[in-house]
């Protein structure tokens, strides 16, 4: 083994340090646009900023609050009228899926 080669413990420490960095959630925000489809009520304001590290569930909860819908009322959300994301999908990942465009819900 060369003298320049990092030891196993050094590599392990570097890997743990890198993992800690990736555990930090980004605090940036993304803009989303809500668009009512079907019998959904039209909202007064359609554009909102939301923290990118939030789960999509937070978007649904926020939407319910805005619409003043009960938790039992059915609410279906789609991205760009294409697919319904899982509640535990991160907003940042969905934002990337739309390639930086506003993603519609």
């Amino acid at each position, binding site marked *: 083994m060369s003298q*320049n080669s990092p030891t*196993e413990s050094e*590599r392990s420490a*570097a890997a743990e340090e*890198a993992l800690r960095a*990736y555990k930090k959630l980004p605090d940036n925000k993304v803009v989303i646009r809500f668009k009512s489809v079907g019998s959904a009520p039209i909202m007064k304001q359609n554009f909102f900023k939301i923290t990118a590290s939030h789960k999509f569930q937070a978007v649904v909860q926020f939407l319910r609050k805005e619409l003043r819908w009960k938790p039992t009322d059915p609410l279906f959300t789609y991205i760009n009228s*294409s*697919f319904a994301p899982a509640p535990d999908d*991160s907003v940042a990942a969905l934002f990337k*899926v739309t390639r930086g465009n506003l993603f519609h819900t």
Partner: protein
Amino acid sequence: MNAPPPPPPPPTDTTTRAQSQSQASVFRLLTWNATIPVEIRLARDSLPQETTQQRGGDDGEHEEEEDGLPRDEQPVADSSCWLRGRHWSLDMIQLWTIINSHPVSSSRHQHHQHEPTQHRGTPSSTGSPLRLILHLKPRQPQPASIPPPAAPPPPPATPLSNSIETCRIAFISLLKEADYIRWGNTRRITGLRRADLEGAWEGVVDHNYETHARFTSKIVPLPLPAPPVPVAQQAGKGKGDSSSSSATTPTPTPTPAKTTTTTPPHPAENLGTALPAESCYAVRSIPLKLYLPDNAPEVQDIVNPLNANGEPTTLISFLRQALPLLFPVPAPDRDTDTDDPTRDPAYALATPVLYGVVVPPEAAVAWLAACVCAPDGWLRIGVVLA
């Protein structure tokens, strides 16, 4: 001066397509039938407190018989365990009960109290493969052979019911999301016949590859050969590592993956030739998720199948872009020897694992997504620390 011999005639499109289809079928079937050893360790403190107390109170034989688990076991979210229940909450209590009701594990405590729970063989006491239990087991009345859990499981993080219908809807949504990432729309999925779309789900539930393949063959692109790199780009390319010459290779920065707002170019934009529509290199981007250990958030990024040079995007180039701290570009003046001669120098700090197998760094991501993707069309790669 002698002219160079003419290159052999390229195979016809039909031959190439048939070969690619055959190649894809082989790998998809191998992946479908693959099994991986799973070792699950449950820490006592990961169970609800009332469960432990109630079990201890009800059962005078007490704790060592009821679980046989060592006190200092690491929880399931161990850094060495990259298998995760996706989108459906992993019912820890139910899983714990099922494993302990298995004949192998029930006789285990006679031998050694501190051995971890081991489940060998695919069939469980319910007759379903373990992976289906992990992912799809609904909360329903259990057979008499399985004792019911002593306490209700902890509430899920999301208010999703875990009925089969909910799982089916979530699975179809994943299929659509993968298709959206591939093509920018879900026309291929929505244009399918209902029987083919339902076949994707039925195939998973019944563990029937043929049923599922009817869907896969229509949606997942084929691993057709990568398009030839234009001569001008070949001449301009340096002699260094091909992965480091990729335009997608990032400069390692000390910041974690962040949301980008730039639109990357279409992979086929730099090619002079049109790609077949069913080629895995013709897609807009590849549905891929990276799973980090220790409950770190999953990483999803836009992965073009081809880099700016028109070459297939390799796994190491993508990893260096998405996780530059875990997959740094080795310094040229630093010796890349490692203590372990079997370890690839590119994987000095972490290793990507797919179905329990270390993926070679030069593997084309598009080929992996076409041949060894999950049944929902996603390529899910776990990252294990060194």
